[in-house]
């Protein structure tokens, strides 16, 4: 009876019938109390967004998997300390972290959010060491600024490790065909050999996509599904932040993965290996979700978005397999599509992957490991492993990796596996390098790296958003606009990066586009910080700073770990001249992400206004340290130095700024300003003459020229330039200043405050 109950629960979970699963599982636990069943119950709660229930039932459990699930629940309830103790018990300093890579990753996140950066870095590194395909860990390292070069992390040694893991997993697996398998779409359609590269590719593509597609970290299918059919798919379901991660799944996952890769029957199965591999991709998704989601609703939204995005991607894909994709994209996970896989290249894999994810996305967002759980049940219940693996194999179209081919297939598999892994790692390497460079704000290099991607990988929401962001950092708002627009077309429901897009539109003063974007984002997901940031930017553009503050506060409310919302809020307070609140906001932003240079910049501006020039210089310098390529930052640093009367250094920085970005007129203007204050009028005028060519309708240039000529007592020229400045209709304050200067032109300029 226990097996039966477990089976029903798992199938309910797989089919997203959470109420059913919960009820049955509670009966199961009452009837056969055991820790494993408790874990299953916790999984049901987590999937149903009831982390608090899972927390209570797992409190005090000692099994590694229970501790892991408990830690997940704590993390979701924001009880970071307890989560940490669960994963790393204080009185057992050498206990192994449950679930290997995933456990380290979760620990890393906990350390990051409790401000212990070095420990966080350490754990992310460990996670990557155990599972080199754990993209999310690498991503976190990039954000913390501590990532090594992608070629170090995703290199041959890593490939070797992955291969070892896969081999050991597969060897521990049983290939007998289980009864369950029949239900799975059998289109493994992959020859045994084919499986591995494709599998790994899909794994990879999936993973990548995962990272991309999660504005809220909702879970995304992990991919591999196409190959394995439902069971496989389930493996990679990273449940939306709240729920997932059923600890139970890993074993099955592993097995499934193995199937694809090796199709070698196995015997023992090492849980840790399995866990490592499986957890990694799953973990990634889950954590993303955890990090960013607010409620279950998010998931459904992101799910839908993802599917739309995927269909968008499918549409955008110029791949020859596009038609196939289209078919796949019709949310139809059929053997046919899988069958298509066998003959296709990796592109198709991605396509299928996409279609699978599409399908997933379209179903209820709380994807989960149903399949995995099913397999797990098999695993648990059948000591002899007659489970899923076989189903996987069966899926593989009969010509599977099976028993038949076992002998001769093995070496072929190995080599395929190896090449598959290499390709996968290659893709991760490129993306990782691009991401790392853009986190270091070496945007030009990052762009070059991204261009190395294949067409179909490039035309995905995540990559296009990253490219847009890189252009934004280079202060090239037109290009940024173009890429973000493309990203939105490819995946209209992606929210990641849209906050930056709204800032780009703000800078371009595109009111219509900005308000349209904001409306769209709100309609997609009212609970996402990006949507409220876009709204806030909309009001900010209209100079309605109070409403903007309200909107940014809402964004903060929705996700307090979203640094940019804090920063934008700070900017609005400063515009309202409420410096105290502005400083508080910037400091909150920095608490979340110390490398958020915009917040350092914001603080610098506040101190500049308050005339605390040393503080201003310190903060601008910190910002500059993080982002050394920004000409705007250099300009502000120079302005702070000028206010501190360190004019030589100021001029140096201005020169740097001018050479860093030829299109930025500000450093030249500031340079002229500094030179004129140093009474080096001729040089100043030279700069201004150049500027005149560049921006002929900028009244401040002429006004400054007039001011200089006034100092030089060349009255006609002064009048001439003041006149031009006035003609260009500057704001009233300037009009007053200029007219006043004109009046006093023929008087000796002794006691003038401004001019």
């Amino acid at each position, binding site marked *: 009876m226990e097996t039966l109950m477990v089976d029903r629960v798992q199938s309910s979970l797989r089919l997203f019938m959470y109420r059913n699963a919960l009820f049955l599982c509670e009966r199961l636990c009452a009837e056969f109390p055991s820790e494993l069943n408790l874990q299953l119950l916790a999984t049901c709660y987590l999937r149903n967004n009831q982390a608090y229930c899972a927390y209570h039932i797992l409190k005090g459990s000692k099994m590694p998997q229970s501790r892991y699930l408990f830690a997940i629940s704590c993390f979701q309830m924001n009880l970071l300390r307890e989560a940490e103790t669960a994963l790393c018990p204080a009185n057992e300093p050498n206990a192994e972290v449950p679930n290997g890579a995933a456990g380290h990753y979760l620990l890393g996140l906990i350390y990051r959010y409790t401000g212990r950066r070095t420990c966080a870095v350490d754990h992310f590194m460990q996670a990557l060491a155990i599972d080199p395909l754990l993209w999310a860990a690498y991503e976190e390292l990039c954000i913390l600024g501590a990532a090594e070069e992608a070629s170090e992390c995703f290199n041959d040694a890593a490939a070797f490790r992955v291969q070892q893991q896969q081999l050991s997993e597969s060897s521990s697996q049983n290939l007998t065909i289980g009864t369950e398998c029949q239900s799975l779409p059998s289109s493994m359609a992959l020859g045994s050999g084919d499986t591995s590269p494709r599998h790994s590719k899909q794994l990879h593509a999936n993973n990548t996509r995962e990272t991309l597609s999660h504005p809220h970290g909702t879970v995304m299918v992990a991919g591999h599904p196409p190959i394995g059919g439902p069971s496989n798919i389930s493996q990679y379901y990273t449940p939306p932040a709240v729920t997932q991660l059923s600890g139970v799944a890993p074993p099955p996952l592993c097995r499934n993965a193995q199937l694809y890769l090796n199709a070698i029957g196995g015997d023992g199965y090492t849980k840790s290996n399995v866990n490592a591999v499986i957890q990694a991709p799953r973990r990634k998704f889950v954590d993303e979700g955890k990090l960013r989601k607010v409620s279950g609703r998010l998931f459904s939204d992101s799910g839908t978005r993802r599917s739309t995005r995927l269909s968008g991607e499918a549409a955008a894909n110029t791949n020859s397999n596009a038609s196939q994709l289209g078919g796949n994209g019709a949310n139809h996970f059929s053997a046919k599509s899988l069958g298509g896989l066998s003959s296709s290249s990796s592109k198709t894999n991605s396509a299928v992957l996409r279609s699978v994810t599409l399908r997933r996305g379209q179903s209820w967002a709380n994807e989960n490991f149903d399949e995995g759980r099913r397999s797990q049940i098999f695993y648990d219940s059948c000591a002899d492993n007659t489970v899923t693996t076989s189903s996987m194999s069966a899926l593989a179209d009969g010509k599977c990796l099976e028993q038949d081919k076992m002998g001769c297939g093995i070496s072929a598999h190995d080599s395929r596996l190896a090449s598959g892994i290499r390709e996968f790692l290659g893709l991760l390497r490129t993306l990782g390098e691009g991401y790392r460079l853009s986190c270091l704000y070496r945007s030009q290099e990052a762009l070059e790296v991204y261009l190395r991607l294949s067409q179909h990988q490039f035309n995905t929401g995540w990559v296009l958003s990253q490219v847009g962001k890189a252009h934004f950092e280079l*202060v090239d*708002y037109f290009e940024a606009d173009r890429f973000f627009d493309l990203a939105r077309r490819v995946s209209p429901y992606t929210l990641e990066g849209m906050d930056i897009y709204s*800032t780009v539109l*703000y*800078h*371009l*003063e595109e009111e219509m586009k900005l308000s349209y974007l904001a409306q769209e984002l709100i309609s997609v997901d009212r609970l996402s910080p990006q949507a409220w940031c876009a709204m806030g*930017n909309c009001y900010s553009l209209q*100079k309605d700073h109070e409403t903007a503050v309200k909107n940014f506060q809402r964004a903060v409310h929705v996700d307090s770990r979203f640094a940019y919302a804090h*920063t*934008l809020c700070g*900017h609005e307070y400063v*515009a309202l*001249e409420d410096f105290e609140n502005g400083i508080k906001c910037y400091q909150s932003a920095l608490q979340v992400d110390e490398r958020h240079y*915009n917040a350092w*910049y914001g603080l610098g*501006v506040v101190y*500049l*206004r308050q005339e605390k020039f040393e503080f201003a210089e310190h903060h601008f310098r910190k910002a500059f340290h993080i982002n050394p390529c*920004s*000409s*705007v*930052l250099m*300009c502000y640093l120079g*302005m702070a130095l000028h*206010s501190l009367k360190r004019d030589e250094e100021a001029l140096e920085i201005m020169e740097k700024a001018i050479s860093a970005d030829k*299109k*930025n*007129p*500000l450093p030249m*203007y500031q340079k002229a*300003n500094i030179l004129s204050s140093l009474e080096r009028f001729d040089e100043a005028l030279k700069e201004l003459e150049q500027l005149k060519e*560049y*921006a002929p*309708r*900028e*009244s*401040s240039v002429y*006004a*400054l020229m007039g*001011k200089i000529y006034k100092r030089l007592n060349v009255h006609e020229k002064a009048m001439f330039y003041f006149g031009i*400045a006035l003609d*260009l*209709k*500057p*704001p*009233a*304050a*300037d*009009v*007053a*200043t200029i*007219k*006043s200067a004109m*009046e006093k032109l023929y008087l000796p300029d002794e006691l003038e405050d*401004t*001019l």
Partner: protein
Amino acid sequence: MATESDGEEDTAGKLTGSQHLEVDDDLREMAKKAAWSVSSCKPGNGVLALRDDNLDTYWQSDGAQPHLVNIQFQKKVKLQLLVLYVDFKLDESYTPSKISIRAGDGFHNLKEIKTVEFKKPVGWVHIPLSGTDPRETFIHTFMLQLAVLSNHLNGRDTHVRQIKIYGPRPNPVPHQPFHFISKEFITYSTLK
């Protein structure tokens, strides 16, 4: 800068008020940073009514003329425009007819800068604070005082429904002698 629109003045140069509040984009409301007080008020119709963005509530004075509204800032600010909402049709003899605007550092050294007369005003009355001299678009002051010297039909007490006060926006880029107006400059002038 808002100038007296045609609809606001009658032939004798007295203000009659306009339906809409029209303020230039480069002005912003300064009133939040000020401390507001009045010389006298009827309970329930106090100074808050002047700032509540509600045209149905009004301040009613309760004493001898002139009735005063004092607006005090913590530091010297540039002020450009004063806007009042008054309604002769509703308030009749409570509607102010002559207003004097004074500025200074405090109660001890207020100096009159402007006097305006109203003629049956209905709606928003915009009063620019500059003198005839274009150099003096703004007044630079710690305190502004609005004195209601007389009402229509010789009423004793007065009703004022809303007061707004505007000044120039600060330069988004700090410590600059001039504002930037061209797209090329503005794009690069701040980070967000």
